[in-house]
């Protein structure tokens, strides 16, 4: 029997090895990876039911609701409870008018991802659809309705460019707010986006224990670490916008493409911000169909572009305010300096024309601004030189973001260095000349022009524009009160500002002034017209059109300014004829509202 002893020893060694392998694997699973498995086991049994928190409202400065919530009946499927995928898909397909194959695909994807997490099938169904589904609770096992909140925009297109819109949360959004539901909507543009952190609420939830068959188990032993939480609604955001003034501004601009900015010159609060054409924010909510989206994206009129903050234009003659300020402050001219305008000015072998072919004759600065003489400013700019000039262009805030809490573009403040850096070419004197009348490389947003105007009107403060005034909690507590802020001062002395202000008053009120069309009956207005030369493709005739952009920037009352209004009408023609009447109507509304005690 001895010969088998060794074999039995080998058998014992194999036995011990097997034990070590099994014990080692248990060590790995229970001690090294125990916490991970514990999480899996928790996910297995803990089912989370969410109560979506309503998003905060967006109100105008007088508390009127621009964006609110209403209930939306949404259809969900809990994959684990689904018994018959085909019959559910067909049944839902009939009533919801969604392709049955698409529903099937959603169910199977959700089943693979996590069969205990509900997946949305359709949002905001109507009453008939709701009745259909509720009546078939038995045969539609696994389908349930959840009441969610959806956005409602009572003013529709009005204010859309700054209100913005919502969209399905992206991966980045979810990584920023880990508590967001999978199908959550987050702000994608406008205040909906910039104030998203205040608007978004905290979803509530309850956790329940369910067994392997999805049945709820009320077993105290396993419920000790369950949590639940009420939903916390998002905070309300109060804007500086006055919706009455906004409406009036939109009506004044009418169907024409362009932008309006109305700003309080004392605080920088935006009172109206118009960009036309625009969109209806409600179209974005129920996952916009691709046809609508493509139409919005591909439209040559770019309705999603906020022209007031992102539209970049040549400022035209409204820029003469900057040229004049620079020249006065640098002492290149004083208020008495005169130049003769023969209708054109020649530098080297190039001739620069005045808009008035016959010329303005001999005029001083005041007359040059009132009549918007080009030659006067050619002469001034030639003396000033681009290096000194560029300092003032930037000093008025051009070429830099204004700091508004909306998407904006900085535009271009040209200078020698800029041209060398970007275009790798030297600067020519002729370019200084055309910059003086707001042409050439200059590109500015209507908001920048409005702030430039306000900085003259308030005596030199370059304001930081404000659209969100404050944030209040659902029970009325003020969470955030934004005080007016500045972007510094314009580098212009008080005397020079006074000269400019007098001239701007003359533009509207002097006989022969270009801004005559913006005069009000009882309040003095000050302003400056502009006509920016553009080359644009006429989409209808396919011909290049030369219809200029019409600018008018203004403030009122002229001697004690409160509000600045800037208007641009794309391809509108002359600023005095086209843009100034728009400004007039807006100012009328403003002062009427003020009289009613409403501003």
């Amino acid at each position: 029997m001895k010969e088998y002893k060794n074999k039995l020893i080998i058998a014992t060694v194999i036995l011990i090895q097997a034990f070590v392998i099994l014990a080692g694997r248990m060590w790995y699973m229970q001690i090294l990876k125990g916490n991970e498995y514990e999480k899996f086991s928790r996910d297995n049994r803990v089912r989370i039911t969410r109560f979506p928190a309503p998003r905060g409202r967006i109100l105008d400065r007088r508390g009127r609701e621009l964006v609110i919530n209403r209930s939306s009946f949404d259809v969900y499927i809990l994959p684990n409870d689904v018994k018959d995928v085909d019959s559910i898909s067909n049944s839902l397909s009939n009533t919801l008018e969604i392709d049955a194959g698409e529903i099937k695909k959603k169910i199977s994807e959700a089943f693979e991802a996590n069969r205990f997490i509900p997946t949305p099938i359709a949002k905001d169904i109507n009453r008939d659809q709701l009745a259909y589904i509720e009546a078939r609770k038995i045969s539609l096992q696994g389908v349930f309705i959840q009441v969610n909140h959806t956005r409602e925009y009572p003013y529709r297109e009005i204010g859309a460019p700054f209100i913005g819109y919502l969209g399905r949360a992206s991966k980045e959004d979810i990584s920023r707010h880990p508590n967001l539901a999978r199908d959550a909507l987050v702000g994608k543009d406008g205040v909906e986006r910039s104030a998203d952190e205040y608007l978004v609420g905290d979803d509530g939830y309850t956790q329940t224990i369910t067994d392997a068959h999805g049945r709820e188990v009320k077993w105290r032993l396993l419920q000790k670490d369950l949590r639940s939480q009420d939903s916390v609604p998002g905070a309300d955001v109060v804007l500086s916008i006055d919706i009455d003034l906004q409406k009036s501004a939109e009506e004044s601009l009418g169907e024409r493409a362009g932008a309006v900015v109305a700003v309080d010159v004392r605080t920088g609060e935006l009172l109206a911000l118009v960009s036309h054409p625009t969109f209806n924010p409600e179209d974005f909510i129920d996952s916009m169909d691709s046809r609508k989206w493509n139409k919005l994206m591909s439209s040559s009129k770019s309705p999603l572009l906020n022209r007031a903050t992102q539209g970049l234009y040549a400022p035209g003659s409204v820029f003469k305010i900057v040229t004049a300020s620079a020249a006065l402050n640098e002492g290149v001219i004083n208020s008495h300096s005169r130049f003769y305008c023969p209708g054109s000015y020649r530098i080297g072998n190039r001739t620069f024309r005045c808009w008035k072919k016959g010329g303005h004759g001999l005029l001083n600065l005041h007359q040059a601004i009132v009549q918007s003489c080009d030659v006067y400013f050619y002469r001034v700019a030639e003396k000033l030189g681009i290096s000194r000039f560029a300092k003032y262009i930037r000093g008025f805030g051009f070429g830099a973001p204004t700091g508004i809490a909306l998407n904006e573009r900085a535009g271009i403040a040209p200078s020698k260095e800029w041209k060398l850096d970007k275009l790798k070419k030297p600067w020519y004197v002729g370019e200084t000349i055309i910059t003086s009348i707001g042409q050439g490389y200059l590109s500015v947003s209507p908001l920048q022009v409005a702030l430039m105007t306000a900085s003259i009107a308030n005596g030199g403060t370059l304001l930081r524009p404000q659209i969100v005034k404050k944030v209040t909690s659902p029970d009325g507590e003020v969470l955030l009160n934004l005080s007016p802020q500045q972007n510094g001062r314009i580098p212009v002395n008080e005397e020079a500002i006074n000269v400019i202000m007098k001239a701007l008053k003359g533009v509207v009120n002097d006989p022969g002034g270009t801004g005559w069309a913006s005069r009000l009956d009882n309040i003095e207005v000050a302003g400056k017209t502009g006509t920016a030369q553009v080359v644009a493709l006429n989409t209808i005739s396919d011909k290049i059109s030369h219809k200029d952009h019409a600018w008018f920037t203004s403030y009122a009352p002229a001697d004690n300014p409160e509000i600045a209004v800037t208007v641009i009408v794309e391809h509108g023609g002359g600023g005095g004829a086209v843009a100034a009447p728009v400004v007039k109507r807006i100012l009328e509304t403003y002062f009427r509202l003020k009289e009613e005690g409403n501003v």
Partner: protein
Amino acid sequence: MMMFDRRLLMNYGWALFILIFTFSVIGLVNLYSASFQSEHYVFKKQLVWVTLGLIGMILLSFLDFKTIKRYTTHIYTITIIVLIMTLLFGKEVAGSKSWISFGHLISIQPSEFAKLAIIIALAKFYDNDFEPGPYGIRDLVKPILIVAIPIALVMLQPDLGTAFLIILISGSIVFFMGIRFKSLILLFIVIIGVSFSGWHFLFKDYQKQRIATFIDSSQDPLGSGYNAIQSQIAVGSGKVLGKGFKAGSQTQLRFIPAQKTDFIFSVLAEEWGFIGGITTLVIYFLIILWILDTASRSKEKFTMLTCFGIAAMYFWHIVINVGMVIGILPVTGVPMLLLSYGGSSTIASLLGIGIVLGIRMRRTPLVKDALDLA
């Protein structure tokens, strides 16, 4: 036949007896937790089986193994007849005709007892043979037949798990006794050939499906693949100390299918943690070591091989079952002896221990036997 000699009691394997008794208690406690919610009869029935098994074990330990040896052929023949009867009159449960039922309360699974019969038959074969190994294929015709007949009968039920275990147990014995390398290769070729022809001519489609799932559980992802994942989650989430008696969420919320039978070890590992799982495994391995020790003290081939075969039976059951539960082996229908719910496997494994105890007790030939020899 029964000999109540005082020396027998002195030589009795008390250590093994205590280990087995402890293990049976662990098994009952664990099974209670796995079934108390809805199926009280499970615990009660198992309590009856364990009690009967322990009584049978004690009685069998006092039976002289020479008697067993003498009646080996009878035992084997009866086993084969019962297996054939199972195929003819058996009760079909979950697609397999593996049970013979006596009323609706009791049904036995003859294939569990067949393992013991095959072990004894093989031991008897080698005991008769005086040539030392390694053995060639011609020497092995008889043992192959001894094993192949019951395997074929079990395969036809079909009960792949049991058939596979019979192959492993008898293979261990044949390998232990030595086999020529060439013969080993030839044996493999024959097994593969038989499997192929069996696959094409013998099995019905549903049987093929069961075999396919047995071999590759990923073919049935929501069935045994799901079981495997849930079982591993149960084991892993037990961590060091476990979730406590009757407090395993995977177990109590029914995430582990077959938790009373094949996946019973995951219940233990979840509720008692690494400490409880390892303690159980240690007891199990000590039992096997003790049986091997008995084998090594044997004075004759029959007792040594019988012990070795029973050790192999315990070994393969635990390795395949625990390996499946902790996710290193595929999902197969192999119960964990003395932990899984089931009368036949419980009683058969306890009877196996009874045989070992009897052999241990008589490891020193008694005076009377010595006289017989003289």
